[in-house]
C-alpha cells in the first residue's frame, strides 16, 4: 500500500512536469489567469505531496505487527489550531491573487471596442456597432429569415450596425475588445482556448467578457455550454490581424441598412442560368450522365453560399472532388450580385420527382436520420435558420457522393466552409458505405410525401 502511494504520488508529480497536455499558448492579455493557475498547482502540489508522504510514513511505521498498541490521544488542541491557521493562510494565498485578477476581469477598459456575438443552434454570427458606435436594439421575437439578428427596424442605432453572418470574425491585435453575448435560442458559450476568457450566451439577456488579443493568427472558437445534439460541431474562427487588415475587412461587411436594401433579381438570374442549363438541365432537374445534381428545390441562401464557396476555393478545392473542380470556373466567372440573382432564380424552379437509383435499408436509415433531422428537418425539406439545405427529392446518387466526400474530408474541410466543417463532423456517424446508402434510402422515402405537400408536415 505504502509503495503504491509513493508510486502514485511520484507518478502524479512527474505527469505534471512531463505531460504533453498543457495550457494552449496564450494569445491574450490574460497572463494573470495563467499565473493564478501555476500558483494553484504549486500550493496544491506541495500539500498533495506532504499529505501523501505523511500517510506513507504512517503506513510504514504503524502497521500492525502484533506487538504494540496504538497511542491514545483523543485531541491535541494546539496542533489542531496550528493546522487550521496554516491552512487558512494557504487558502488566502490561493484566493487573494485570484480575486485581484477577477477585479480586472469584471472591469472593462474604457478604450475597448464592442463586438456582439450571437449564438444560435448551431452556429455563431457577429455584429459590430457601426459608425455611431452604438448597437441598435434587438429582440429574439423579431428574428426571421430577412432579419436574422432580430433588429428593431426603426431604431436609428441599428441602421449602421455591421452584420457578419458567417461564423468567421476578424479582430484587431493589441486592442481591447468587449464581447457582448446573446443567444437566439438555448444557452451557448463562446470559448477560444488561447484567449482564456469565456462566457455563456443566454437568450433574453446580454452577457459580456473582455480581453486584448496579443498576437496575430487564426483561432478556433468552440461552444462550451451544452446546446443540443450538434453542440460538438458548433465552431467559429477568430482571426486576429493588424488594424489595417481589420479596417479593410470591416469596410467590406454589409450594414443592416444595406442588407435590407439589397434585392436579388430572379429575372436577371434567369439569364445567368442559361449557362447552367447545359449540365444541370433546362429546369435545374439535374443530369446524372453529366454528374450534375438537381438544383431545383434548393433555397437561395444555400445556393449562394455554395457558389461563393466554389468561387473562393472553399469547395471543389481538392483534386479528389473532380466534379466540384469542374464547377469552380463557372462560379469564378460570377460577380456578387450575379450570385444573388442566380440563387434567387434557382429558388423559383419547380420541384419535380427524381428517379431512385440507390438501394439501401431504409429502416436502418431512418434511425440514422434522427441526427440529420435536427437541422434538415424530419421531412428533409431543409431549414434556412440552420443553414441546412433540402435533401428530400434531391438526386440520391449526388447525396451519396457528397456524404462520402464529407466522411472522407474531401468536401467541407476548408476553414472557410464553416457548415461544411459541421457536415464533416456529423457525417462521421455513418460508419461505412452501407450506412450512407441506408440513410439516403430513407431520404428517398421522404421525397414522396414531400413532393405532394411541398411543405414540411407538422412534427
Amino acid at each position, binding site marked *: 500500500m505504502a509503495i503504491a502511494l509513493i508510486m*502514485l504520488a511520484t507518478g*502524479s508529480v512527474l*505527469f505534471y512536469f512531463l*505531460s504533453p*497536455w*498543457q495550457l494552449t499558448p496564450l494569445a491574450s492579455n490574460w497572463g494573470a*489567469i495563467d499565473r493564478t493557475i501555476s500558483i*494553484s498547482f504549486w500550493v496544491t502540489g506541495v*500539500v498533495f505531496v506532504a*499529505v501523501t508522504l*505523511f*500517510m506513507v510514513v504512517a*503506513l510504514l511505521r*504503524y*502497521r500492525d505487527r502484533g506487538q504494540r*498498541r*496504538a*497511542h*491514545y*490521544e*483523543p*485531541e491535541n488542541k494546539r*496542533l*489542531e489550531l496550528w*493546522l*487550521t491557521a496554516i*491552512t*487558512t493562510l494557504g*487558502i488566502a494565498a*490561493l484566493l487573494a491573487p*485570484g*480575486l485581484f485578477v*477577477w477585479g480586472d476581469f*469584471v472591469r472593462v477598459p474604457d478604450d475597448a471596442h464592442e463586438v456582439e456575438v450571437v449564438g*444560435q443552434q448551431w452556429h455563431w454570427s457577429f455584429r459590430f456597432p457601426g459608425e455611431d458606435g452604438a448597437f441598435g436594439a434587438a429582440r*429574439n421575437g423579431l*428574428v426571421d429569415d430577412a432579419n436574422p439578428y432580430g433588429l428593431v427596424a426603426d431604431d436609428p442605432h441599428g441602421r449602421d450596425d455591421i452584420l457578419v453572418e458567417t461564423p468567421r470574425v476578424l479582430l484587431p491585435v493589441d486592442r481591447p475588445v468587449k464581447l457582448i453575448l446573446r443567444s437566439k*435560442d*438555448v*444557452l451557448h458559450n463562446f470559448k477560444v*482556448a488561447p484567449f*482564456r*476568457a*469565456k462566457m455563456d450566451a*443566454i*437568450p*433574453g439577456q446580454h452577457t459580456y467578457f473582455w480581453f486584448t488579443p496579443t498576437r496575430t493568427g487564426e483561432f478556433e472558437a468552440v461552444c*462550451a455550454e*451544452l*446546446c*443540443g*445534439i450538434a*453542440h460538438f*460541431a458548433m465552431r467559429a474562427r477568430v482571426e486576429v490581424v493588424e488594424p489595417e487588415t481589420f479596417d479593410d475587412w470591416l469596410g467590406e461587411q454589409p450594414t443592416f441598412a444595406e442588407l435590407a436594401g439589397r434585392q436579388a433579381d430572379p429575372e436577371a438570374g434567369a439569364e445567368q442560368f442559361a449557362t447552367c442549363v447545359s449540365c444541370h438541365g433546362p429546369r435545374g432537374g439535374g443530369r446524372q450522365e453529366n454528374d450534375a445534381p438537381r438544383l431545383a428545390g434548393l433555397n437561395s441562401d444555400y445556393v449562394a453560399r455554395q457558389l461563393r464557396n466554389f468561387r473562393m476555393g472553399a469547395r471543389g478545392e481538392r483534386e479528389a472532388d473532380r466534379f466540384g473542380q469542374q464547377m469552380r470556373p463557372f462560379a469564378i466567372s460570377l460577380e456578387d450580385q450575379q450570385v444573388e440573382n442566380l440563387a434567387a432564380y434557382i429558388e423559383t424552379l419547380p420541384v419535380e420527382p427524381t428517379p431512385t437509383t440507390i438501394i439501401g435499408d431504409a429502416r436502418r436509415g431512418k434511425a440514422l436520420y434522427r*441526427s440529420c433531422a435536427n437541422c434538415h428537418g424530419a421531412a428533409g425539406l431543409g*431549414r434556412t435558420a440552420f443553414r441546412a439545405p433540402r435533401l428530400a427529392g434531391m438526386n440520391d446518387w449526388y447525396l451519396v457522393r457528397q456524404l462520402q466526400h464529407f466522411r472522407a474530408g474531401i468536401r467541407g474541410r476548408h476553414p472557410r466552409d464553416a457548415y461544411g466543417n459541421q457536415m464533416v*463532423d456529423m457525417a*462521421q*456517424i455513418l*460508419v461505412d458505405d452501407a450506412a450512407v446508402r441506408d440513410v439516403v434510402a430513407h431520404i428517398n422515402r421522404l421525397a414522396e410525401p414531400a413532393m405532394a405537400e411541398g411543405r414540411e408536415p407538422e412534427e
Partner: protein
Amino acid sequence: MGEREYDASSYAPPAEVEEMELPHPKGFFGKYVWSQDAKVIAVQYGLTATAIGLVALVLSLLMRLQLGFPNSLSLIDPGSYLQYVTMHGMIMVVYLLTAIFLGGFGNYLIPLMCGARDMVFPYLNMLSYWIYLASVLILVAGFFVAGGSTGAGWTLYPPQAISPGTPGVDTGIVLMLVSLAVFIVGFTMGGLNYVVTVLQARTRGMTLMRLPLTVWGIFMATVMALLAFPALFVAVLMMLMDRLIGTSFFMPEMLSMGESSDHRGGSPLLFQHLFWFFGHPEVYIVALPAFGIVSDLIATHARKNIFGYRMMVWAIIIIGALSFVVWAHHMYVSGMSPYFGFLFATTTLIIAVPTAIKVYNWVLTLWRGNIRLTLPMLFAIGFLFTFVNGGLSGLFLGNVTVDVPLSDTYFVVGHFHMVMAVAPILVIFGAIYHWYPKITGRMLDETLGKVHFWITFLGTYVIYYPMHFMGLEGVPRRYYAYGETTFISDSVQSLNAVITVAAFIVALAQLLFLFNLAWSYFRGREAGSNPWQATTLEWQTPHTPPRHGNFGKALPIVYRWPYDYSVPGVKQDFIPQNVPPEAVERESDTRRGGER
C-alpha cells in the same frame, strides 16, 4: 476526554428498557418485501441502487467507447451520446449515491448505532423505499419511450432541456422530471425518519457527542437534503409546467427550431440558481456520509480513536452550513452578474478549511496507530488519497479566475469524478466490506476483495488523473467527437483510448465484487458478532445478523464515546460503548489474577 469517560456520575442510571411492542412480521413477504424493518429496507435500497448503478456504469462504457474509439458502434450517434451523458450523471448522483448512502447505510446503521429498535416511523420508512423504486422505474421507462430518454445533461438546463434539438424532448424529459419529483417525495419520508430517529430514539447514555461519526455524517447530510431537495422540487415542477402547459418560468422569448416560440419573459438563469442551490449541497449530501463512515473505518482498523472527534463533528456541521452559500461557483461563466464571483469564490475557499481539517484528522488518526491493512482499511486509504486529489483540484475550480479557462472542460470531469464519484464509491465499497459480516453473518472473500480494490483504486486513477491535463489544454466536455479541433493535440486521442481501456478493466473488476457478494453469502467464512473488534453498538447485538428489534430483550446502555480503542491500562485494545466502567478488564486486574 478520555478521563471524563470514566466519571461514573455522568451516566444515566442503568435501567432495564423493555422490548417495544414491535409488529413482528410473518412469512416471506412480510419479512423481505413489505418489510418495515429498517435493516431490510436498507438492503432493498442497496440492491435497487446497485442495479440502477450498473445501468449507469454500462452507459459510461458506451460513452468511453465513443471517446476512445470514435464511431466504432453505429448505435452511438450524437443524440444517444448525450442521452448516455445525462442518464449516467443523474443516476449516479441521485439514484445511486444519494439513495445508497442515506436509504441504504442510513437505514441500516442509524437505528443500530443509536441503540434504537428501528426507525421511529417504520411504515413511512417502507413507503419511502417503494416510492423510490417507483421513481427509478419511471426513470428507466425513459429508455423505452419514443425519442428515448432526455439528453439535456444531468443539469437539465433550460431552454435546451425542453427545446427541440435535444434528444428526448417529447417524453424523456417529462419522465425525468416526474421521476425526480417522485424521488424527492420518497426521500422526504425517509429523511424525516432519519432525523427524528437520531434526535429522539437514541438509547440511554447515547449523547449527541457520543454518536459515531457515521451517524453524524448521515444525520447532517439528511438535514441538508431536506433543505436542498425542495429547491430542486420547485425547479422541476416549474420546468414541467413550461414543458407541458406552456408557462414561461425559465423560457424567454427565443427561437425554437428557427421559429419564434410562444414563450416570453422567463429566466434560464433562475433555473440554474435553483438547481445549484440543490446541486451543491448535494455534493456534500453524498460526501458527508462518506466522511462519517470513513472516520469509523479508519478508527476501527487503525485501532485508534479518531483524532479530534469534537473538531470532526463541528467540521461536519460547518461544512453542511457553508455548503448552502457556495452554489453559484458552478455558475462563474453562466452570465450571472460577474460581481457574484467575489463572494462565491471566497465562501467556496473558506469551506476548504474545515474539509482540510477533516483530512488532517484522518491522517493523524493513522499516525501512531496500529494499522491493520484489512479490506475496509485499504478502501479507506484509497478514499483518502483520491479525496485529497479531488479536493485540491476543487481549489482550482472554486477560485473564480482559475475557473474561467477550466470550466466546461475535462478538468471539471476529472475533478468531480475524483471527489464525488470515486471517493464516495471507495467508501461505499469499504463500508460494504466492513458491515457485510454484520448484515449476512459471513465475511467477504479477502483475495477477491484485494484484487477488486487494487484494480478499482489504480484503474480509476489512470482514468481520471490525466483528464485534468486534457482540461488544461481546453478539451471541452460533453462533446460527441472532437474532429479537427485546432487547439487539441492529436495525442489526446491516444490518451482517450488508454482511458477507455482502463475504464473497461475497472468495470470488469466490479463483476468480481458482485460475484464476491453472492458467493460469500453462501460460502463465506462465518463472521461471528464482532469480527473487527469494534466498539460501536451495531457490533454488540445478541444476534448476527441482528433480528427485528435489533437488541433482543433490553436496549444497550451507553457509557462511553465510540472510539475507546487502545485505552492505556486496559487489557483489550477496544472497549465497546455499552461496557460499563466497572466491567472494563484492566491490565492490573489480570496481573492481580496472576495470569502473567
